[in-house]
C-alpha cells in the first residue's frame, strides 16, 4: 500500500470524527462515537492501524509517525467533547466510571491434591531431620513384603484374602500355600526397608512414601488403597532414645509445638521392641504411627550383623494425617476426583 493512501485514510477519519463531535448532544451519543472511532475491537482507528502492516516497509516509519499524530488528535477531540458534558452535571455519566468493586479477574490455577501436599510436607520435615527420600516398587514379591520382614508363613497378615495377589498361575491356591514366586500389591511401605538395606551401604537414614494396598471394604475411614510413610535409621549406635527423639521432633513439627504425644509398647513382626505413638486430640488418644527397633531377624535376612549395627523403623498412614490437617471426614472423597472437592485445597 502506498504511503499517501494510508495517510489519506487517516485524515479522512480524523475529519469525520471532528464533524461528528461538533454536533454531539448527549453523553450516550458521545460514547457511541468513542466506540466508533477508538473502540478497542472494531474502532476506525484500529482498522487503519491494521493497514499499517501493509504499507511498504520503507514508508512505514513515516506512516507510523503520522498514525500516532492522528491518534493523539482524535483522543484530544474526544476528551474535549467529554469535558463539555462533564461540566454540565447530568452529563457526568458520559465518562464511564471505573467500578472498583467489580470482581477481579482471578487467574484459573489448579490445585495440588491434599495427599500430595501432605506427602511433600512429610518429606520436608523428615528432610530437615536428615532423612533422604527413597522408593521401591508397588508390586512386590513375598520375600520383601513378608519373609524378610519377619512375617512368617503362618502369620495372619499373609492370608491371600487379606492381600492383593496378582492373578497368575503361580498364585492359583486361594487359601495359604502361595508359591514363593507369588507377586502382590505391597501391603506396606516397609518393603522398601528391605530393598534399601539389600542395596545401599550403611549407615542409612531414609524415608519412603507411597501407595499401599489392603482389601478393606471402603467406608468413611477405610479405603483399599492408601499411602504410608516409612522411615529407617540404621547406624552403629542407634537406640530407642533416638527413636523417641526423632519421632517427638517429627510429631511436634507436624502437629504443633503444644502436642501431647505418648509412646506405648506394641507389637510388629519387624521391630522389637515395638512402639505405638499416640497424640492427644479432642479428648482422646489418636494413633499417630507405629515404630520400633529393627528386629534382629530382619537384619539377619539382609545380612547385616545385629551385633554391630542397630536401627529403628517407623511407619504411619498418610491419609489420617492429611484428613486431620484439612478437616476431611470421609477418606473416599480423596479418590473421587470431584473438582469441587479438589479445588478447596488450592494453596
Amino acid at each position, binding site marked *: 500500500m502506498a504511503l499517501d493512501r494510508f495517510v489519506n485514510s487517516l485524515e479522512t477519519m480524523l475529519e469525520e470524527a471532528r464533524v461528528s463531535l461538533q454536533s454531539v448532544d448527549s453523553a450516550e451519543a458521545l460514547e457511541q462515537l468513542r466506540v466508533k472511532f477508538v473502540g478497542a475491537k472494531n474502532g476506525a482507528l484500529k482498522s487503519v492501524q491494521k493497514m499499517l502492516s501493509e504499507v511498504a516497509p520503507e514508508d512505514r516509519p513515516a506512516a507510523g509517525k503520522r498514525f500516532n499524530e492522528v491518534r493523539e488528535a482524535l483522543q484530544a477531540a474526544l476528551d474535549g467533547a467529554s469535558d463539555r458534558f462533564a461540566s454540565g452535571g447530568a452529563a457526568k455519566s458520559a465518562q464511564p466510571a471505573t467500578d472498583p468493586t467489580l470482581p477481579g479477574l482471578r487467574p484459573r490455577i489448579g490445585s495440588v491434591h491434599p495427599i500430595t501436599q501432605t506427602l511433600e510436607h512429610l518429606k520436608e520435615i523428615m528432610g530437615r531431620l536428615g532423612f533422604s527420600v527413597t522408593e521401591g516398587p508397588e508390586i512386590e514379591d513375598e520375600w520383601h513384603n513378608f519373609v524378610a520382614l519377619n512375617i512368617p508363613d503362618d502369620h495372619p497378615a499373609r492370608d491371600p484374602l487379606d492381600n492383593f495377589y496378582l*492373578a497368575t498361575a503361580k498364585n492359583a491356591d486361594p487359601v495359604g500355600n502361595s508359591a514363593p514366586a507369588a*507377586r502382590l500389591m505391597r501391603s506396606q511401605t516397609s518393603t522398601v526397608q528391605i530393598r534399601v538395606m539389600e542395596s545401599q551401604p550403611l549407615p542409612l537414614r531414609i524415608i519412603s512414601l507411597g501407595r499401599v494396598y489392603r482389601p478393606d471394604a471402603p467406608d468413611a475411614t477405610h479405603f483399599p488403597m492408601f499411602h504410608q510413610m516409612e522411615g529407617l535409621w540404621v547406624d552403629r549406635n542407634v537406640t530407642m532414645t533416638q527413636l523417641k527423639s526423632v519421632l517427638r521432633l517429627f510429631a511436634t513439627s507436624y502437629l504443633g509445638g503444644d502436642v501431647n504425644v505418648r509412646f506405648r509398647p506394641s507389637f510388629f513382626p519387624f521391630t522389637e521392641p515395638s512402639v505405638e505413638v499416640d497424640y492427644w486430640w479432642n479428648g482422646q488418644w489418636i494413633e499417630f504411627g507405629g515404630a520400633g527397633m529393627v528386629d534382629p531377624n530382619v537384619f539377619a535376612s539382609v545380612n547385616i550383623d545385629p551385633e554391630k549395627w542397630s536401627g529403628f523403623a517407623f511407619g504411619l498412614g498418610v491419609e489420617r494425617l492429611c484428613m486431620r490437617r484439612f478437616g476431611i471426614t470421609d477418606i473416599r472423597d480423596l479418590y473421587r476426583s470431584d473438582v469441587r472437592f479438589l479445588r478447596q485445597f488450592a494453596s
Partner: protein
Amino acid sequence: MLISWDWLSDYVKIDCPLEEIVSRWAMSGLNHEGTEIVEGVPVIDLEVTSNRADCLGHIGIAREASVLYRVPLVVPQPRPATAKSSIASVLQLENLFQDACPRYTARVIRGVKIGPSPEWLAKRLRAIGIKTINNVVDATNYVMMECGQPLHAFDLAHIRGGKIIVRPAADKENFLAIDHKTYVLDSQMVVIADAERAVALGGVMGGAESEVSDTTTDLLIESASFAPMSIRRAARKLKLHSPSSHRYERRIDPNQLDWASRRCCELILATAGGELLDGVLDTNPVQTNLPEIELRKSQIVRVLGIEIPWETSCDILKRLGCEITKVGEQHCTVAPPSFRQDLPREVDLIEEVARIYGYEQIPEDAMVPMVASMRRPKDIVMSTLRNVATAAGFDETLNPSLIGRGPADRISPWSSEAPLATMVPLLEGASILRRSLIPSLIAARLHNQSQSNRDVRLFETANVYLPNGNQLPREQLNLGCIAESELRIVRGVFEEILHRVWGVGSDTPKLSETKVSWDFLESGSGIAWMAGETMLCWIGSLSRSLSQSLKLDGAVTLGETNLDLLLQHAQLVPRVRDVVPFPAIERDLNLVVDEALQWQSLQGVISQSAGPLCVDILFREIYRDTNRDGAGKKRVLLTLKLQSATDTLRSEQADEVVASVLGACRSQLGAQLLA
C-alpha cells in the same frame, strides 16, 4: 479382650482408681479401647496384640497388673475329687495327627445334671458378652475366659465305640457343626473323631451330634493344643472363626492343658454335680520348657539407650514369671515361662524389661546428628510439573491403581501386552492394573460430568504397570492430563514442561514429533514426541465413537508423559544464556494456504528458509474467508521474530528474510501472502 473388673479381683487386689490401672496397662502394652458398666460392673476392653496369647484370659491380664503394682497374683489350684473307677475303663484315646495336634487330653465326668449356671458365673459371662447355654458349656467358656485355654465338653453318650481318635479329616468329609451348618473338610484339617465319625473340628468348633443337651449325663472334657497354622488355615477356609480358634492361632500355653482340664471339671462338679473318673488320657504328657536365653546387661543399654539397674531388669523378668537360672554382673540366664511363647530371644526380654520399666523413662531429647540430605532430582522435577499443570488450570487427582472392565480399559499406548490383574478386586470390579492413566482420568471426568461440574481439567502423576513377560511388571511413572475441547491446552502443558525440564546437553536425545493413530484417538489428532525409538509423551483427542459409548458429553483431549524417561534427561538447574542487547524486529505474515497444511510443515519450511536471523516463529491464529480465498483454503497469521546477535537489525535485512520465507512458502507450499 473384655475384662470384668469384678472377675479380675479374684486373682489380684489392686487398690487404685480404674482410670489409673487402665492407663498403666495401656502404657505397658495392653491398649485401652474403652470401658462400659455392665450390670453394675466395669467391663474393660483391652487390645491384646497378636503375640500375647497369655493375655487372652483374666489371669493373664491380672498377672500384668500384679507385675505393674508389685502385688501377688493368686491363681486357684483346682483339685477336683475323683471317683474310684478309672477313665481307661470307658475311653481310649489315639492321636494320628501329631503335627496338627501336639497334645490332647481327656477327662470323663459321669452323672451330671444339666441346668442353668449359678448366677455369679452367668453374670460374669454376660458381662463379657458370652451367651450362657447351660452349666456345662458355661463352665468350659468360663475357664477359657479365665486362663485362655479353649475347652470342649462332649456328650459321652454320643461318642461311639468308646474311642477318641485325633486324625486328619478325609478329603471332602462332611461335618455338621454346633451351629447346625455342614462344612466340607479337607485332609489338612484336624478332626476329633469317635470310632465312626468326626465329632469335632479340632480347635475350631464342636459337632452338633455330640453336643451337650438337656438330657446329657456323661461328659468328655477335652483340653488340647493345636498347631496355630493348621487352625488358622481351617478357620479361614471355612470362614469359621471362634474364640477357640482365635486363641489357638496365637499359640496357647501347652503346659496349662491339665490345669485347665481340672479347673473345668471342678467347676462342673460344683455346678452340675456328677463324679469325675480317675485319671486323664493324655497323648503327650510332657512339660515343654522354652529354651533358656542369655541376657547381656550391655545389650539392654545398646537397644534402649538408657542404663537400667541390673537388679531391676532381673527383678522385672522374675515378676513376669521368668526363672533366672544363673546371674552374674554382666549376664544372666533366663528361662521364660511356658505361657510366654513370645519370648524366644534376648531382644524379646529387653522389650519386656523396657515395657515394665516404662517407655516414658527413655528420654526424648537425644542428639540427632546432622547429615546432608537433599531434594532428589525427582522431587524437583515433580514440583516443576505440578507448578506448570496447576498454572494451566489443571487440578491434581489421585485415582485407584486398579481399574474395571469397560470401553476405556483397552487404552494402552505404552504396552500391547495384556494387563495384569489381581485375584481380589480393589473396588467392585476393579482388578486390572492400569497400563495408562487415561482410563482413570476418563472415569474422573465422567464422575464430574455426573455432578454437572464444567470445564474440568485434571492431571495425575502415578505409576502404570506394564506387563513384562514372566518378569515383575515394569512400573513406569506417568503424567496424565485430560481437558475439554482445545487440544492446544494439553499440548501447551507438555511443551512448557519439556521447555523447563528436558535437558539441553549433548547426551540428551533430540525429540522428534511423529503422528500416532490409536483406536481410542480421533483420526489424525494423535502426536507423539519420540526420544529416539522411545515415546516420551503423546497427545490426542478421544475418538468420537469411544466418547459416545462412554456417554461423555463433550470433547475430550488427552495427553500422557513417561516421567521416568523425562527424569533421565532432566535438566534440574536452568543455565543462563546471554540476553542479546539488540532489539528484535517483528514481521507479521498473513498467509493463505491449503486447508490440509499443518503448522509443523509450515514452520519447517519457514525455519529452513528464514536463516539464522529468525529467532522465533510465533503462531497467531487461523481463520477462513471462503468468499475471498475459495474453499479448501485457510489463512494463517504468524509473526517472525528477527534479531541479530551482533548488531541492530536493519529494515533491509528483515525484508530479505521475509522475502526468502515468502518465496519458500510460495514455491514449496503454494502459500500466498495476503496483501
